[in-house]
C-alpha cells in the first residue's frame, strides 16, 4: 500500500493536473463548433459522474435517482432562459402555457423572471430537496439497497408528476427556450468556446473541491461510515448528518450539471427523469471506478464517447456490449478501471505485498 504511487497524494494531484490541463487545451486545438459543444456536454456527464462517485464511492450511498437533482435544475435553467425570452409587458407568458389554458404566469415561474434569482433557485431547490429528503431518510437509517430503491421510486414519482402538470411544464414535450442564456445582455452561445469554459470551470472546480473534501477529516469519516455506520455512530458522530451532507453535496454537483446541460442543449424534457438515464450515470462511475473521482469522469467519457463514435454496425449491439462489460466489471473489477490501474501500479512497484493487496481488493465486497 505504502509504495503504490496510486495512493500517493502527490501523484494523484499530478494526475488531476495532467487531466485538466489536457482538457483545458481542447479549445486550443479544436475549432469545430459541434465538437466543442459535444465536449461541453461530455463535461456535464463528467460532473454527473463526479456526483455519483462522491455519493456512492466515497459515501457508500448508492443513489439510483440522481436524475432527479439533475432534472430539477435542468428545468430551473430552462425556466430562467424561457423567461428571458418573454417580454414582461406585451408577452409575459411562455407560449405553451397559453395553449394549456393559463392566462397568467404561475407564481413559481415568476420567481425565475430575474436571471440571477432564477439561477440561484435552479441550484438551491435541488440542494434543499436533497437536504430535506436525505435528512428524512438517513435519520430513519434507511440505507444500502433500500435507499437505492426509494431514490428510484422518488425519481419515477417526480418524472410522472412533471409529465402530468402539463400547464406548468409542457408535459412530455418539455421546454425549449428559443434563445441561449443572456448574461449581462450577451448571449452564452452553446457552440462557443465560452460555453466550453463555463463547463470546464465547473467540472474542474467541483472535482477539485470534491477531492479536497474526500481528503479532509469529513472525507475520512464518510469513508469510515461506508464501512460500518454503526461504529462511526458509537464514536460520537451524527451519522445521518454526515450522510445527508455528502448526499446533498453530490446533489448540488448534479444540479450544476443540470444547469450546464440546459445551457448546452437548450432543451429539457421529462426524459431527464428517465430511470435508465440515472442508472447510466451509475454505470459510468461503476466502470470508471467509483472510488476514484477522476476514474468516474473517464468512465463517463469512455461510455458516452463510445456511444457517439463507434460505428453503426457496432451500435446495434451497443447495449449488449455495455451490459456485458458492466457485468464483467462488477464481477471481476468491483473498483472499476481505476481499481485495475491501482492494482497494476501496485504490482509494478512492489510485487509481493501488492499482489496480496490486489487479491484482497478483488475479494473485498466493496459495499
Amino acid at each position, binding site marked *: 500500500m505504502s509504495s503504490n504511487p496510486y495512493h500517493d497524494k502527490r501523484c494523484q494531484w499530478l494526475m488531476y493536473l495532467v487531466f485538466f490541463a489536457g482538457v483545458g487545451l481542447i479549445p486550443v486545438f479544436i475549432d469545430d463548433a459541434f465538437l466543442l459543444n459535444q465536449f461541453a456536454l461530455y463535461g456535464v456527464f463528467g460532473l454527473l459522474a463526479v456526483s455519483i462517485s462522491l455519493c456512492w464511492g466515497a459515501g457508500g450511498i448508492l443513489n439510483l435517482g440522481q436524475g432527479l437533482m439533475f432534472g430539477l435544475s435542468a428545468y430551473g435553467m430552462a425556466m430562467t432562459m424561457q423567461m428571458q425570452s418573454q417580454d414582461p409587458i406585451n408577452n409575459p407568458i411562455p407560449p405553451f402555457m397559453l395553449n394549456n389554458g393559463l392566462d397568467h404566469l404561475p407564481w413559481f415561474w415568476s420567481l425565475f423572471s430575474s436571471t440571477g434569482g432564477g439561477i440561484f433557485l435552479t441550484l438551491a431547490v435541488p440542494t434543499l430537496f436533497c437536504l430535506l429528503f436525505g435528512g428524512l431518510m438517513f435519520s430513519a437509517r434507511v440505507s444500502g439497497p*433500500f435507499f437505492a430503491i426509494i431514490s428510484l421510486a422518488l425519481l419515477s414519482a417526480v418524472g410522472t408528476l412533471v409529465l402530468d402538470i402539463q400547464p406548468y411544464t409542457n408535459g412530455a414535450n418539455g421546454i425549449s427556450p428559443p434563445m441561449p442564456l443572456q448574461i449581462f445582455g450577451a448571449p452564452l452561445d452553446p457552440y462557443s468556446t465560452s460555453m466550453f469554459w463555463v463547463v470546464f470551470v465547473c467540472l474542474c472546480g467541483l472535482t477539485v473541491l470534491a477531492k479536497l473534501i474526500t481528503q479532509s477529516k469529513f472525507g475520512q469519516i464518510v469513508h469510515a461510515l461506508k464501512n460500518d455506520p454503526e461504529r462511526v455512530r458509537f464514536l460520537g458522530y451524527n451519522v445521518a448528518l454526515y450522510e445527508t451532507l455528502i448526499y446533498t453535496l453530490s446533489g448540488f454537483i448534479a444540479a450544476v450539471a443540470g444547469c450546464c446541460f440546459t445551457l448546452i442543449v437548450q432543451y429539457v424534457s421529462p426524459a431527464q427523469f428517465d430511470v435508465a438515464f440515472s442508472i447510466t450515470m451509475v454505470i459510468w462511475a461503476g466502470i470508471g471506478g467509483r472510488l476514484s473521482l477522476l476514474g468516474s469522469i473517464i468512465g463517463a467519457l469512455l461510455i458516452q464517447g463510445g456511444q457517439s463514435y463507434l460505428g453503426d454496425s457496432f451500435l446495434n449491439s451497443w447495449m449488449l456490449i455495455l451490459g456485458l462489460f458492466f457485468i464483467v466489471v462488477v*464481477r471481476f473489477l468491483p473498483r472499476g478501471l481505476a481499481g485495475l490501474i491501482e492494482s497494476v501500479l501496485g504490482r509494478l512497484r512492489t510485487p509481493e505485498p501488492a499482489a496480496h493487496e490486489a487479491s484482497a481488493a478483488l475479494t473485498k465486497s466493496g459495499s
Partner: protein
Amino acid sequence: MDYSWVTFANALLLGLSIGSIWLIAALGLTIIYGTAGVINMAHGELIMLGAYSAYCLQTYLGVSYLLCIPLSFVIVALFGLVIERVLIRYLYARPLDTLLATWGVSLVLMQGVRMIFGNDPKYINMPQFLSSNVSFGPLSLSAFRILIIAMTAVLVGAFWYVFYRTHFGIKIRAVTQNKEMAASFGINSQRIYMLTFALGAGLAGLAGSLFAALSIVLPNMGTGYIVQSFLVVVTGGGSLLGSVAAGALTGEIQSVLAYLINDTFARFMLFILIVVFLRFRPQGLFSAGATRR
C-alpha cells in the same frame, strides 16, 4: 362522471385485479430477495423473456395459450438457473453489486431479444372464452382478469405450502435466517439459493406469459414492471405475506385514486405514499425478520 356506489365497487374490484397483477409481477422477486437478499434488477427482463417464450411457443410450435403459461415458467426458470450459475452465485455477499450486475444482465437480455426478434411488437392469441366480460349484477370484470386473480391466488397458496409445509421450505427458511447454522446441519445453501433463484425467475416468466396477453410483447416491456415490483417487495418487507398485503394495498390505492382523480396522478401519489411509508417503517409491512421471531 358520476361517482356512485356501483362505480366505486367496480373500482375496488378492479383494484383487486391491479393488485394481483402487481403481486404476480413481484412474487418471483419476493422469493429471490426474501431468501437470498439478491436485488434482481433483471426481473423485468425475465418477465419479458416469459412473454417472448409464450409468443414463440404459440407462433412457432402452435402450443395453446393455457399450456404456454406453465411452459414459460419452465423456460425462464432455466434461464434463471444459468444466470445464477454464471454470475449471481459469486455475488451473494455483495447485495449492491448484485443490483448492478443484474442491471447489466437486463441490458444484455433486452438487447439480445431485440436483435433476435426485432423492435416491432408481438402479440399472443387467447382462447375465445378468455376474451369476454363476466358480470356479477352491476359488477363486472373481464374473464382474463379473473384468470390472473385466480392464478395469483393459486401461486400464493402453492408457495405458502412449499415454504411453510415442505422439507424444502424448511431448508429455504433455515438458509434465509442463518446460512452458517444451516450449513452445519448439512443444508447446502448454494443449492438452495440456486433453486430459489430459478424458482423466482420461473415465476417472472409465468407472469410474463400472462402480461403478454393483457397487452403487448416488446423487448422493453420489462422496464415498466421493475420499479413497481420492487416497491411491492420493499413495502411488504420481503416476506410472502408482506408482498400479498402490499400488492393488494397498492393495487387498491392505485385503482381508487385513478377512479377519483386520474391515472397519472394516482401513480404519482402511490409512489409518494410508499416513500413516506418506508420513511417511517423502513422494515416494511411484514418484514422477513418479524415473522422469524
